[in-house]
Every structure is written in C-alpha cells, then in structure tokens.
C-alpha cells in the first residue's frame, strides 16, 4: 500500500521526514525512474484495452506496442507481471489522455498520481521490483 502525500509537498519543502517514514514499497516507487513507472501504467492500460473486441490490425498494433515497451531495465518478465488496469484506473487514464504529452508526463511524475495507480493495481509494484532487480544487477 502506497500512502498519499497529504498535503502534497512542494519540491522546495523538506522531504526528509516524509522519506524517513517510507515503507519498502514506497521506497521502491520513489527509486524507480519515472519513465519506467509511466511505461508500466501504459502497459496496464494496453492490456486492459486488449480485453475488448477490436480489429485484428489494431490488436496487432497494441501488441507491438507492448513488445516495444520491453527494453533496458523493463524486462519481459516485468511486462508480463503487469495486470490489466481496472475501471477506475482507466477512467483516470482517460482524463490524463486529454492533456498534452508534456503535461501528461509531468502529472505521471507526481507522487499521488502514481501512488493511486499502484494502489489500484498492485502488480505495478511487483513489476517495479523486477525493474529494481535488473538495476541492482546492472550496478553491481
């Protein structure tokens, strides 16, 4: 379970107290690069979309997109570990989709937003653990 920041801390405020209170999952979330976090959320969204009926060419496009997500720290196992997004997450993603790419990326970097996605879909944390394992192996 990832706690939300209430009230949300600004970048200029002291985060040490907040960081000291992190549990393992929160620490994992904080240390996962935001791009990978965003990718994992997108994977959950695509997997949810693949559960609906669609033309074959579109299905292939989605599957190709999933396949392209597998790179660097995001391994095939991590991609496979992500479960499809739930209705609430899809609603959130639909609202985020209305923003520009820049705003979308900024929003996905926010703690409370990614925490909400992780709480709705705990498989994201499981996938982040696999990402962290790869990063540790790379660093050692």
């Amino acid at each position: 379970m990832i706690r939300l920041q209430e009230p949300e801390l600004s970048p200029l405020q002291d985060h040490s107290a907040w960081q000291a209170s992190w549990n393992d999952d929160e620490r994992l979330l904080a240390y996962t690069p935001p791009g990978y976090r965003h990718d994992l959320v997108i994977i959950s969204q695509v997997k949810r979309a693949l559960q609906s009926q669609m033309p074959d060419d579109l299905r292939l496009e989605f599957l190709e997109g999933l396949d392209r997500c597998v790179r660097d720290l995001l391994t095939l196992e991590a991609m496979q570990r992500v479960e499809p997004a739930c209705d609430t997450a899809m609603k959130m993603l639909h609202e985020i989709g209305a923003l520009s790419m820049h705003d979308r990326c900024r929003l996905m970097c926010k703690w409370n937003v990614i925490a909400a996605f992780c709480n709705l879909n705990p498989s994201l944390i499981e996938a982040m653990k696999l990402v962290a394992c790869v990063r540790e192996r790379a660093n050692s």
Partner: protein
Amino acid sequence: MSAVTETAEETRVADLGPAMLKLTPKQRKFVLALFEAPRSHGEGTFAAEMAGYQAKSRDVLGVIASQLKADPKIQAAIAETSRLYLTALGPAAVRSARRVLNNPKHRDHGRVLGIVFDRVSPVQSTALVKVEHEAAPSMRATAEVLERIMQLAARAKVPPMIDVTPTPEKAL
C-alpha cells in the same frame, strides 16, 4: 366412345409421364401431335389442328399453338416426351449404324466405326493435373497478422483473441 377405345385410352394414359399427366387431354394431343408433324415449319399449327383446337384461320391457329408452346406445363411435357422418343429411337439408330458398318464403302463407315469403338472400349488416358493455389494478398496478410498476434500475445501472456460469443439470455 366404344369400350375398346376407352380401354386403349386408359392404357395410353397409364403409360404417360408425370408432366403429361398434368395436361388436359387436348393439350396432351397437342404435345404428341408436335412429334408427328410432317415438317418442322408449321408444326405448331399442325399439332393444334390435330388436337382439335378451332380457329377462324390458320394464322390464329398458329397464335394458339405459340401460346400453348409457351406454357411451362406444356414445355415440361414436350421435354418428357422428347426423352421417351429419343430412348425409343435407340434401336433404330443401332440398326442404321450396323448398316453403315456392314458397308465398308459407305462414306461414314470410318466415323461410325470410331464412334462404336469409343463406346465399346473407350481410350483410357491419365491426365496429371497440377493445381497451384496462390493465396490472395489480403488472405496472406490476414494469416500473417493472426500469426504475429498469436506470437506477441504469447510473449506478453495475454489472450490472443477475445471470445465474443453472446451468452444466451436468461428466461424471464
């Protein structure tokens, strides 16, 4: 009508095919008379006259004959009777063929000989037919797309296709 004529008429009716049985006696006579006409030109008028159709002139009789021949029931009866006649002509055809075969000087002797040989001991030939089927580009593309979907879905561990079979509605 005498008893003998009635019996003969009944026998003839019993020999008729289903298409002829659907016609009236007058129409049956018309169909049979078509095959007895002395020449092809004016056979309809002849048959109509023989069947007992009456008109002020032969032209009108010709119109009646045309109308009769356009009737699908009569056309079916003509086809049926034609088959019977052709079957009955078999022995006559064989007799004629035999006459030609017995006469080596006849100009069609060779042709009839060939026809008889073809039917008695037909030449057997083996034809090797090689059929090559090339899938249409769209079909091939579809197969490739589906194969790729299967591969990628297995890789991502997601179901490749969605079952959209409608569930039966529950009875109210």
